[in-house]
């Protein structure tokens, strides 16, 4: 069979035609999901902001369900599947092992997402993302998620198969590149995650049909091995994208291959167990189980993030210094390409993820603090800093490179594209910090009306809460404008953008596959 591919003028990589098309399809699906989830985000925000209080209670919980599932599962996983096709067949100079299976998996994912969206928007699944039993949704809602998860699982196995094919056909030399290695850890965590998803959603689907019982405590335990572990897929994928963006934008080097790879392995070993921190206030588990999982095991996963948090900027610094930017302590960062949305997204993602998401996450992973702030806005304040400011920001930065490299189009509205990461990250910074503050004042999460109007009791929050929630809302709206700009830029670029002409891209053969090419062993 003839292998249809093209040679990328920038990277010199052979890009398989099917990988190319599958990346495009998953990228477009991710953007559609981002649009739906983003609209839902604004509606939720304008309701939580008591001064506006837009939606009634029924629609608030409906839209909150849409926002959670569409953003945390559909948008992120569609994009991650695109990342797997890029870091597997493309970076390894190889081919998609079974293209038809890939398209069938994509169809399953789309069908599952559409089914779940239909159930949510028609009011048959007002159960929020966690859908705790005995909250009962329509069986088709659970079926939709199962179909989506099966599709995603097939793509991860396709990724593993592409590693085998590339190795067998000798399309690369030495070890797989660090970025592919990181993506492989994301895929392994995805298998663990989706396995737990199947383990809990299939019984829950049968329960919704009245065929069996599901214990609420067992549901919570297994569901969080999906609910939180899925965010660890994001972390591993995001860190891989950090290394990729560093290599593409400033030619960063890998400071020490072994340390970076060990840190990825730590994610596989410990990060799923750390999901137990969702159960810190649950009565069904003993203190030893809770402490071992959320202290010792979680800190090993945190150690991995801190290693990457050092090696990624250090790789940028050494790469810059090796190219002559050696002035003072911070000359390398002053002379960095801040007008490149890929680079600014990388830096903003690392900073907000680490400083806000990381610090708040470790803090609320402590049992005593968790007992106080559990189910307050402190929790979404943390994960909006990690998943949105970290993962989504990194994915946005990567998009500015994928559009020219894969879609072969120029970025539309280029001046806006240069500002978009700053707008989005700046808004999210205020949003997540002030959301955390509000949680410190005991403002509950997932709550329609914190004035408790018409309730038989009266609860007064600190007067500071109004101000804090107001700043949070303004930050969220600024971030929403940044997100809308991203969608406008990407959709316009892909569908109406100016094609790249022959010779416009450099043929310097940049090696994005850090680890296979440039390495900082010279430094070590």
């Amino acid at each position, binding site marked *: 069979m003839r292998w249809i591919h093209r040679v990328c003028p920038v990277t010199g990589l052979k890009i398989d035609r099917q990988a190319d098309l599958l990346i495009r399809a998953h990228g477009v699906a991710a953007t559609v999901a981002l649009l739906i989830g983003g609209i839902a985000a604004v509606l939720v925000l304008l309701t939580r902001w008591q001064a506006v209080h837009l939606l009634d209670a029924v629609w608030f919980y409906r839209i909150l369900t849409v926002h959670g599932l569409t953003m945390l599962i559909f948008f992120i996983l569609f994009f991650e599947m695109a990342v797997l096709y890029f870091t597997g067949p493309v970076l390894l100079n190889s081919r998609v092992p079974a293209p038809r299976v890939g398209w069938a998996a994509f169809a399953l994912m789309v069908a599952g997402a559409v089914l779940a969206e239909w159930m949510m928007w028609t009011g048959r699944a007002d159960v929020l993302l966690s859908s705790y039993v005995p909250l009962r949704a329509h069986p088709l809602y659970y079926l939709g998620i199962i179909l989506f998860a099966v599709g995603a699982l097939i793509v991860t196995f396709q990724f593993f198969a592409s590693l085998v094919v590339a190795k067998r056909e000798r399309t690369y030399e030495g070890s797989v590149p660090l970025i592919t290695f990181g993506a492989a850890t994301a895929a392994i965590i995805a298998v663990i995650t989706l396995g737990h998803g199947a383990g809990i959603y299939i019984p829950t689907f049968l329960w919704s049909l009245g065929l069996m019982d599901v214990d609420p405590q067992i549901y919570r335990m297994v569901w969080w091995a999906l609910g939180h572990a899925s965010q660890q897929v994001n972390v591993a994928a995001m860190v891989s994208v950090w290394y990729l963006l560093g290599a593409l934008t400033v030619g960063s080097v890998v400071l020490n291959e072994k340390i970076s790879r060990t840190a990825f392995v730590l994610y596989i070993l410990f990060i799923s167990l750390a999901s137990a921190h969702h159960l810190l206030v649950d009565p069904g588990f003993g203190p030893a189980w809770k402490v071992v999982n959320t202290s010792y095991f979680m800190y090993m996963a945190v150690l991995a993030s801190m290693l990457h948090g050092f090696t990624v900027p250090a790789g940028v610094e050494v790469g810059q210094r*090796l190219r002559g930017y050696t002035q003072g302590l911070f000359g390398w960062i002053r002379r960095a390409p801040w007008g490149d949305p890929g680079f600014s997204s990388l830096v903003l993602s690392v900073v907000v993820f680490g400083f806000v998401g990381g610090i708040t996450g470790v803090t609320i992973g402590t049992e005593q603090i968790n007992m106080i702030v559990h189910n307050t806005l402190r929790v979404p304040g943390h994960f909006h800093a990690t998943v949105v400011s970290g993962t989504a920001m990194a994915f946005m930065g990567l998009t500015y*490179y994928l559009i020219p490299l894969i879609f072969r189009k120029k970025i539309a509205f280029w001046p806006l594209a240069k500002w978009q990461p700053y707008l989005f990250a700046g808004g999210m910074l205020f949003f997540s910090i002030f959301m955390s503050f509000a949680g410190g004042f005991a403002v509950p999460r997932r709550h329609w009306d914190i004035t408790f109007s018409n309730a038989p009791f009266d609860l007064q929050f600190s007067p500071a809460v109004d101000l804090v929630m107001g700043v949070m809302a303004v930050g969220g709206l600024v971030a929403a404008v940044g997100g809308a700009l991203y969608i406008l830029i990407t959709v316009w670029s892909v569908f109406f953008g100016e094609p790249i002409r022959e010779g416009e891209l450099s043929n310097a053969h*940049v090696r994005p596959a850090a680890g296979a090419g*440039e390495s900082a062993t010279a430094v070590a």
Partner: protein
Amino acid sequence: MPMYGLPPGLVNPPRPLPEEDDGEELPWTGKLGPAPGTLILVLIFLAAFAVYYFANWKQLSFLWRIG
């Protein structure tokens, strides 16, 4: 030269580095190692962590009084 609509990393990519390691220490490497700027940033991060950790306890202890 930056080109409208294309990231600088694609039209003017970073200069490739020499492949081989000659084992020599890098000219800027001093007491703070090969990435001194990053080391300072990491120390700032640790300071932020400490400040947040204690400020968090302080805030919660004010808001959630026992007795």
